[in-house]
């Protein structure tokens, strides 16, 4: 019952359908003039379409098309003759900008290596569409990286020179005035060791001294917003979602002040708080107390979401994983426990040290955790499932405070010295062999934080506050809509509303946030079972093959069995064939276990037996890197300088771009 094709069109119907599929749908309000009988299908002419469309052709074979799109060559293929504009001038860069495959890979979220159970035709078409969409979006995301113009700064010693020997004074001398102004010391000797916190935009700094001194300031302009003495010991201080609100863990209770220094709340349910953490996307203030409770306070509604008893004595070490908002607590028995408000027990418990844990820090990608313990060891753990140490080293005194920068630099405060280690790229763990920078302070370190979007490390110590320059610490590009250091008050208010609307529920905090994009298999199975019970049979179950009874003595038992066997074999063959066809690379499949095993034993491999980096990390970057308004100029990174001081030492020279892609965020 094939339809007879129209005589006017010579094309076979199949191809015709293909073409129509590709075409942009014609809108009914668009001109009906094209309704010529000759035209097999309505729609605009092909040329116009080509101009508009990003992806020229529906790829038949995925592999080739990918190559085509991503290398430079295909541009010529796409538009062999460059378009002419009205003025007659040629567009030298016609077509979409090229993007490299690696960058696109970074944004790909579908793991194609995973085998899917053989889909039906309908489902397959859906899957194909989804894959195409994903590819396109990842290409777009990769292309948007062009808009990230800023590059991170760095220090580089001249042929084998140790960067750790470079002093702050040298750096200050070498950089421009604006950057040099970011290095400063606040001498505040009366009010004891200081804790400090930068706001999420990196523009504001709040610090609280042990003896009650609390102050907040715009540290770039050095404009003081408020300064008070709370007449009580201050344990920790933290900005809430914006710089307008300030949580201070005082001796007794938790207090919240506004940027005028006016006390807004005294939260009595959080008492004897030692450490504070703010989860910005969930609007949760996590507090760890002396009584051993981890309390989550929802600051948007003022309710306590969860109060979890850690059952490990006094809690004085806490940090958050910025990737999945899980809270890490360090205990005196050498373990680090990971918490979510949805669970009463820790999600994971890791034995890290022989002695108690003194400090914990998690990097911005959520892949690495650095811990330091009473056994004087500093370790970097892999957080992606295995929780095994990647590297470790013994420090002479042990680090009391740790902090990761946005680009993965690790700072450790030991006594009155701050050491900073750097890794290879953004997502790589810091190598603990050689420190990147060291700095000696006038007092004992009491608080450490890297300033977001600035190459600055803030150190609170017993002698006050020190703001150090650490080239290459922060992300050079910021997302103007997410955290804009230059936002006005109005913008901030608008952002606040939007952020509140997009607030993530607290119960969604889990170890692997990608798991939320998965179907809940258990309840699915449960529902299926219940349905089967209700109906009295399982509608999805396949009835076993029952050979029809035949006449004339051909329905003997033997033949029945034979027929049954035949059908079974056939099914088996089909499924087997399917399985083989499912693997595009049969050899790779064979090799896979081997490769994994070798990986497991090789000491060089940084992630023994591990899956590739989380797609979520890339996703997070993509999220940050939407670059809606186009990235603004970075708030004053320490830029690579060509006029380095003298030939002897070339402090800030451009680093080769190997493995140092300008990432988003």
């Amino acid at each position, binding site marked *: 019952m094939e339809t007879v094709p129209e005589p006017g069109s010579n094309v076979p119907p199949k191809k015709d359908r293909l073409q129509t599929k590709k075409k942009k749908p014609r809108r009914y309000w668009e001109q009906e003039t094209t309704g010529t009988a000759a035209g097999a299908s309505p729609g605009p002419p092909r040329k116009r379409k080509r101009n508009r469309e990003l992806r020229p052709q529906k790829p038949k074979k995925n592999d080739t098309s990918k190559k085509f799109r991503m290398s430079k060559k295909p541009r010529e293929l796409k538009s062999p003759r460059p378009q002419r504009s009205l003025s007659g001038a040629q567009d030298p860069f016609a077509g979409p900008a090229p993007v490299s495959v690696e960058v696109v890979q970074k944004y790909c979220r579908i793991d194609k290596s995973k085998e899917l159970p053989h889909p039906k035709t309908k489902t397959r078409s859906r899957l194909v569409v989804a894959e195409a969409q994903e590819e396109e979006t990842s290409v777009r995301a990769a292309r948007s990286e062009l808009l990230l113009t800023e590059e991170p700064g760095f220090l580089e010693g001249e042929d084998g020179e140790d960067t750790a020997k470079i002093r702050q004074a040298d750096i200050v001398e070498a950089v421009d005035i604006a950057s040099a102004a970011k290095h400063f010391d606040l001498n505040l000797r009366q009010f004891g060791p200081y804790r400090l916190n930068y706001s999420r935009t990196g523009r504001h700094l709040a610090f609280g001294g042990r003896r009650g001194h609390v102050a907040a300031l715009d540290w770039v302009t050095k404009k003081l917003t408020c300064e008070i003495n709370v007449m009580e010991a201050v344990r920790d201080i933290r900005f809430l979602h914006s710089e307008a609100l300030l949580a201070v863990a005082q001796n007794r209770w938790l207090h919240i002040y506004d940027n005028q220094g006016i006390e807004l709340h005294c939260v009595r349910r959080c008492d004897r708080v030692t450490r504070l953490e703010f989860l910005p996307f969930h609007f949760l203030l996590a507090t760890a107390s002396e009584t051993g409770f981890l309390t989550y306070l929802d600051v948007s509604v003022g309710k306590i979401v969860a109060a979890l008893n850690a059952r490990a004595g006094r809690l004085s070490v806490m940090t958050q994983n910025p990737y999945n908002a899980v809270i890490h607590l360090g205990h005196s028995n050498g373990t680090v426990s990971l918490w979510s408000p949805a669970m009463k027990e820790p999600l994971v418990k890791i034995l890290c040290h022989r002695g*108690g844990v003194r400090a914990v820090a998690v990097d911005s990608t959520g892949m690495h955790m650095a811990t330091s313990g009473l056994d004087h060891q500093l370790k970097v753990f892999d957080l992606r499932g295995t929780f095994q140490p990647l590297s470790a080293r013994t420090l002479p005194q042990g680090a009391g405070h740790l902090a990761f920068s946005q680009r993965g630099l690790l700072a450790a405060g030991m006594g009155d010295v701050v050491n900073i280690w750097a890794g290879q790229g953004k997502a790589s763990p810091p190598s603990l062999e050689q420190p990147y920078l060291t700095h000696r302070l006038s007092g004992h370190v009491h608080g450490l934080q890297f300033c977001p979007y600035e190459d600055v490390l803030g150190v609170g110590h017993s002698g006050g506050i020190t703001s150090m320059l650490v080239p290459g610490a922060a992300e050079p590009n910021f997302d103007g809509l997410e955290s804009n250091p230059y936002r006005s008050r109005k913008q901030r208010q608008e952002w606040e509303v939007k952020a509140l609307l997009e607030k993530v529920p607290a119960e969604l905090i889990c170890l692997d946030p990608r798991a939320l994009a998965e179907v809940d298999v*258990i309840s699915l199975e449960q529902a299926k079972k219940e349905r089967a019970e209700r109906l009295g049979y399982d509608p999805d179950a396949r009835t076993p093959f029952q050979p029809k009874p035949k006449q004339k003595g051909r329905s003997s038992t033997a033949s029945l069995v034979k027929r049954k066997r035949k059908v079974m074999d056939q099914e088996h063959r089909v499924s087997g064939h399917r399985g083989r066809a499912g693997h595009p690379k049969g050899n790779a499949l064979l090799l896979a276990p081997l490769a994994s095993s070798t990986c497991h034993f090789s000491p060089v491999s940084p992630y023994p037996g591990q899956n590739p980096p989380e797609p979520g990390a890339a996703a997070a970057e993509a999220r940050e890197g939407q670059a809606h308004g186009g990235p603004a100029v970075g708030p004053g990174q320490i830029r690579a300088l060509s006029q380095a001081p003298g030939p002897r030492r070339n402090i800030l020279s451009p680093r080769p771009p190997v493995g140092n892609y300008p990432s988003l965020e």
Partner: protein
Amino acid sequence: MNANQAAESLLASNQQKELEDLPKDYPLSTSEDEGDKDEERKHQKLLESISSLNGKDRQKLADRSEASLKVSEFSVSSEGSGEKLVLSDLLEPVKTSSSLAAVKKQLNRVKSKKTVELPLHREEIERAGTPLEQEIFNLLHKNKQPVTDPLLTPVEKASLKAMSLEEVKMRRAELQRARALQSYYEARARREKRIKSKKYHRILKKGKAKQALKDFEKLQKVNPAAALEELEKLDKARMMERMSLKHQNSGKWAKSKAIMAKYDLEARQAMQEQLARNKELTQKVAASESEEEGEGQEEEEEPLVPDLVNEVQIKANGLNPWMFRNHFIDAKEAEVQKDLEDPAEPEAQETSESEEEKAVVEEETLLKEFEERRSLRQKSELNHMAEPVHRRVTKDPSSQEVLSDLRALCQKLSTENHQSGKQELSSARTAQREEPAREEEEPMLLQRPERARTLDELEELGREGCVENEELPRTAVEGLQLEKNLSNHIGAPKEKKRKEQMIDLQNLLTTKSPSVKSLAVPTTVQELEDEEERDQRQIIKEAFAGDDVIRDFLKEKREAVEASKPKDLDLTLPGWGEWGGIGLKPSAKKRRRFLIKAPEGPPRKDKNLPNVIINEKRNTHAAAHQVQVLPHPFTHHQQFERTIQTPGSTWNTQRAFQKLTMPKVVTKPGHIIKPIKAEDVGYRSSSRSDLSVIQRNPKRLSIRHKKHLENNCVD
């Protein structure tokens, strides 16, 4: 009297005045106040002196008006009286008597005699009078100890210069730790000594004997001279045994057994055993000597030389005296080296001596059991890591008995050796080292945090400090490995598994790292008081760190695993089908029959991660937000998951998001939507077309419609 009264009245008035004055200068500073008091006192003194001018009765007794600590037994206190109390006044009797004159004179003499000034004059110091003094001075000079300036010796000064502040601090911390550990060892040794179980001691002794035998064997191969010496000791022990009546049937116990032996088979056996033992012990070691003869040629010249000389000789025989010194002095280092070799060695031995090993293994396991039970009972908080060392420490006291046991075993072994005729040369350096290590263990621990005398010592100390750090966990690992080997023999898979896990953990926690290089070491220049305190606390914590952390964690993990396992369902009804009641339990068969075993769950995620406990509980709160139903065309959840991997605007660029969310049907207000025509779809028009129903793209026509359409077309 008048004067007195007058004075009193004066005083009273004065006080009154003061009282009047008080309100005026109320807000006085404390210093002024004190000044006032001073004046008052002076004033009173003046009054008193005036009153005393009167003469006669100035010796007034101070009456005790209020409680005071200074109460003289003669009720003479110096406070109240007008004058200072002089010693001679006390001694002066009411009437001068001749009997006290002698005492007085004596006192005077004492008074007049010059006391010894404490810092003596130089000459006095230098002068050495008595021979003892001379000797002392001699010693002092020899060791460059200061005679005059007691503050610092030149050596100490030098050492002070050699050490920087941080070094000293670090070293001090190390020493403190060592002391803490030592106290542990001591406590533990004491505790073990107090163990009363005879069985335990017997097994311990046996184990030691076997160990000694093994050591001896090794020694025989490596250092025949030393072995010979040992042999001599054995011989001596044999002699002692022969002299004593210990294993003859003459003791109290033996006699009692002898009475019982007639009726009791066990007693008879015990008696026989004892006799056999006696025989064993008193037998001469013939085999080993014959063995020795071949190689003992050179030593035959001097077997009668005293031990001390022999020892020196041994030392001289060694290749490098420095190496030897290291062996003996840096016991820890030797241990570390031994550690390196150890993992290979036990296996080599195992292969060779598997037969004897079995017996040894059994006993050692018994020993282990003992220890475990004990530790469990007492819940000791002592350092778990120190175990192997303790064992070594406790070895020493009962060495004599060990020797006698050793002999017997030695004989057994030699006979066996003869039978098999095999002799394998295993590297016996361990045996050689073990003993020096044992000897040196205590001195190391007893070391006080004294300042090191010389630079060499300083260096050594530093090295030791470094070594010590690694040593502790290593020994533990070693011990565990040995245990593992043992359990290999027994074939206890479960325990082995656990041990392996533990070893992993150990390795995990003792990851070595590069030495400190170009790292600014923090100095402690200024420390606030509380900070110092905190430092102190931290040091204490460090000293106690590592206690049972691993064991606790493993225990916790085991509990977590147990808790997460699905529970078996027991449906047995006691008393059903059999007798029931108090003290009666349903039979095992019944229980087995009615026990519904829970299905084995999926393997835990942390199965192969010894240092991790991953919570396997389901997060129901998050699950509420997950998709719970599969949409229509999908048959498997993985298929559907693949289509929802690119969510929302937060994860995509704006353009991409817009494109993703573009509606399939776009309408524009103010425009008429015309019904679709057959021409639009590419078909011939027909009068009976009912396509007006379809407003969409032909692509989206449902199959039913298409069929309909086709029918129409055919028509």
